[in-house]
């Protein structure tokens, strides 16, 4: 896997466009305090760059440090070491935040607000004038589909309406960088589609979007580049294609008929030994009586030949053989699991 890491990290140096977001050697250690637990190292030397007009996705398992990274970018927490800049301004400065819009994961808007008054409030906090607020409010209410509900108290809003209002407030002052933390969380498919369309529209307008999402499909669909973060370190950065093409193994799906209990562990282990691969590289699922689906991760073409020979020698009938394209999820799981093995 070291080869993979090296190649992925080399991609970081080839990012295109002016750096809207520039993070270098960023570490964040939460001190334990006198009566608290041991210090936690949430970020360990993170390097990232995102250019103008990019939709940059950040992926990682729970506890990977994604939220900490976003908090550092917003100036909510201060880095322990390293540097982070937005638009050339150090994060934490008022100037750096002036061009940033943010949609938090669990948005809270005071219950006394209506959609309109909330937008006005957050617009003023962003330094907007009353005239600009009035104009922008109408546009955004239309954009997020809250035009008819703009004078209702937000306490009556559904989760989806709440999330759309949050997106509107993030866009209120027409920011150049939009940081979205789980923007489709809690939305139905229609809502998710709507958010995706908004993101695409913004991308077309040249806005930079920093997207944190657990939904890999969504990231795959909208992000121009993706970074994978695990245990406080960046494990890979690039486009989805760039990342997946670096996977060293290829996956094959083989449908076969077998009179025996093919999916027995000792059987699979025996096959793996015969062709010289790790037994974890073979995954078998029983589809019906006597019908099995075998997934094999193979690094060399000769191993496929050996596998086919082995199957046929064992009187198994191969019905279908297909080479599968590696998905972002494969890459994600691979990187995360790989790192997990090494985790202290």
């Amino acid at each position: 896997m070291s080869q993979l890491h090296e190649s992925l990290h080399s991609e970081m140096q080839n990012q295109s466009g002016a750096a809207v977001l520039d993070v270098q050697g960023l570490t964040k250690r939460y001190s334990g305090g006198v009566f608290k637990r041991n210090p936690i190292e949430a970020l360990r030397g993170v390097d990232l760059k995102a250019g103008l007009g990019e939709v940059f996705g950040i992926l990682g398992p729970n506890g990977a440090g994604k939220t900490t990274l976003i908090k550092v970018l917003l100036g909510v927490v201060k880095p322990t070491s390293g540097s982070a800049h937005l638009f050339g301004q150090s994060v934490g400065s008022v100037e750096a935040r002036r061009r940033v819009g943010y949609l938090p994961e669990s948005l809270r808007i005071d219950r006394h607000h209506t959609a309109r008054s909330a937008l006005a409030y957050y617009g003023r906090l962003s330094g907007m004038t009353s005239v600009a607020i009035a104009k922008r409010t109408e546009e955004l209410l239309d954009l997020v589909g809250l035009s008819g509900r703009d004078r209702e108290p937000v306490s009556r809003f559904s989760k989806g309406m709440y999330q759309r209002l949050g997106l509107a407030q993030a866009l209120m002052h027409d920011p150049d960088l939009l940081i979205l933390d789980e923007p489709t969380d809690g939305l139905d498919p229609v809502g998710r589609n709507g958010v995706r369309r908004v993101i695409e529209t913004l991308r077309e307008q040249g806005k930079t979007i920093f997207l944190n999402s657990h939904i890999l499909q969504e990231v795959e669909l909208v992000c121009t580049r993706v970074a994978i973060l695990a245990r406080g370190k960046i494990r890979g950065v690039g486009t989805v294609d760039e990342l997946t093409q670096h996977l060293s193994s290829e996956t094959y799906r083989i449908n076969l008929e077998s009179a025996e209990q093919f999916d027995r562990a000792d059987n699979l282990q025996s096959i793996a030994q015969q062709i010289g691969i790790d037994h974890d590289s073979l995954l078998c699922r029983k589809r019906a009586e006597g019908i099995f689906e075998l997934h094999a991760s193979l690094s060399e073409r000769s191993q496929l030949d050996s596998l086919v020979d082995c199957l046929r020698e064992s009187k198994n009938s191969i019905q279908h053989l297909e080479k599968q394209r590696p998905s972002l999820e494969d890459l994600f799981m691979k990187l995360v699991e790989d790192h997990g093995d090494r985790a202290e």
Partner: protein
Amino acid sequence: MTPYFSVIVDSFRAAFASRVLWIAFIAIWLLLAALAPVGFRLEYTTDFRAGDFYNGTRLKAMLAKGTVDPAAAEQPIGRLAAVLPDELSRQLKRVGEGDEVRIYLRVFADALNECLDDESWYSQEAWEDTLQFRELRELEALAEPIEPTLRRRRARLRIEAALPGVFEARSSQSVRLTYGGVDFPASFSTDRTQFLTLVNQYVLPVIIQWLMGFVLVFLGVLVTASMIPEMLQPGSLHLLLSKPVSRSLLLLSKFAGGCTFVSLCVTQLVVGLFLIAWLRLDIWNVRLLLCIPVSVFLFSVFYSVSTLAGLIWRSSILSIGVTCIFGSICLVVGVIGGLFDSLVTRPASIKHLEMVGETMIGSTRGGGLVYWDQDSRAWNEIFESNPLGADRVLPPVAVNENQLITARVRGGRFNPFGSGASDLLVMSRENGWDGEPSMRLPVSTTGLQLSGDRVVALSGSELASVSLDQVLDAVGSVTSPGTQVDRQDGASDRGSAKTGWMEKLSTMMGGATEGFESVLPKGISLDPPASLYMDSEGKFLIVYTRGRLLRFEPDQGSDRLWRQVSVRATEGEVSSRSWIAVSGKLLLLAREEMPLEIYDVVTLELIASCVLPDSISPVFVEGIFDGAGFLLGTSDGLLRRVTRQHARGELSEPLGSSEVECVCVDAAKKIAYVVHHVDQVDVINLNSFELIERQTPQLSGWRLVEKYLISPARFVTPQTGELGETIEAIVSGKSAMTVLDGPSAGEVIRYKLFRPIVSCTCFTIVVLVSSCLYFSRRDF
């Protein structure tokens, strides 16, 4: 609109969305609606109340005499006694026969009130010899028939004339409160000025202090405690912190916004009270509106603590808890400080200083008597000050370089007009200022003066004198160890064959006792509030009572009787407290709520006047020396010089130290001893008004604790309780209030105007800066 202003405005919106706010609004509106019907009307003071009697013992004795003495039957007291209810008459008869009978003053009041409607007791001939003041003379001159109210007023004045020295001087008009047009049962025997003082200095501050200082602050803390913890919720805080705003200013804006809740309530309440006072009581007091910022400021002190606790623990419950603990600490420190004030500092305060030769002798507020020991640089006690005691020491009077006279009245503070008589005490330097009993003083003596070679005692509304030689000769003749104790009502003499009932009644009336002889002409009494100045050489006496200045001089051919030589009626309320002093040929009359007036001491003609600032009132006056002016102690604790510049008096800038307690002037040496800060003494040159020396006494153990422990604790702890005094000072526009301490003396309690503001401001700033630092530097 700046981002921070929008946070404040948002807090207003949040407050208006709060149900608690509307509940508080409704409660305030209901309170104001309940107060709105309160009104008043002025009426003549007619009915007697128990509080109108200055000297109940004298009243009892006079009416008893009228009941039992056949010679008094056709005198006013006899005619009045004749129409009293039977039960009261029987009791008075027993009094006249020497029995100890307790009669409540309200019984007298009820009986005399019955006399107001039926004037069968009145006889022009009988009242001819009584002293009739201008108002009574004017009413007597009215042609019949006169209005029933005026008739009752006239009857009251006739009764007062028949019983001189019994009644407090009351305003001719009373304020009667009404509610929705219906009269309250009782009326205030005060004039409009005093009514204004009452409302402005007591009623409104108390309402505001309790409602705002306690209810609204507590309610406000409960309601606003959740604001900071709610702001710190991740979805809310991260969104706010992502905006281009400063964290510190954001927090301060939230803090200011939190104060909106209380400001909305306070504004309605104060404006409502202001309108009621204006429209219903005809009191235009714009200062009342200043209570709005002060009350919000008071709340901000507590809210700053709530904010810091909310930041640290992010819990509304903990914020409320910590704020309550903080409030309790403030309360405890305030109470302990108050206890030290009343039990340690106040009793040690010197309220009167007298120079006996080179030795300073002071009487304290704790009923003690002390002398200054130059060697140990400390006040040594002659009589111990007792903060909880009811004893009273008459201000000592130096009779020569080595001796002074005074008296110790047991239970005197609460029984100032008591029927008991105390012994005059003579104290000498040679026997270590140990008091030696001399003659018995007239009943209820409240002050002593030396006039030439005679000692003059002010007893009740009488003046009685005895020769100094007699006093000194009598030393040692009274050997009983209990001589310093009141002989209650002559009880020890009860049954004595030598003591006749008439002598006893005379004693009860404040008449002469054991050699003391009344000196005022017949019909003249010092009805309180009165003040007097007695020439040390015994050449003249000036008295101010019932709105009149009177000058007396020794009667030719008599060494004891005085005759009235001039009189001057003054403008203003007769029930105002007054002080007089003489400097050369000038007489200064200082009265509450009135300008200072300078008169010619011989002719009593008004020469000059000087208006005092509204916020201060006189506390004492002393003449300096021949025509050099006067020293005026004022309610703000400062000492000023009053001089005459042609037709107007001039008030100097404050002289020397603050917190002045009293002054003793040595005219011969042209120096003044100014007691300040409890018991420190500044010796001042009266020519240059420069400080000659300062005597700072060694402190006792408790005083040291007060100085080095309690005072620092009070300095560090915000004095939120004392902000109530700030409100009182603002509403009343005064720097102090006067609490009566005896029949003629008043203790001035200065409002702590700036100390609580400074301590609360410093505390709030420190807490807010700490909160800002915490909020700015902490990761969330």
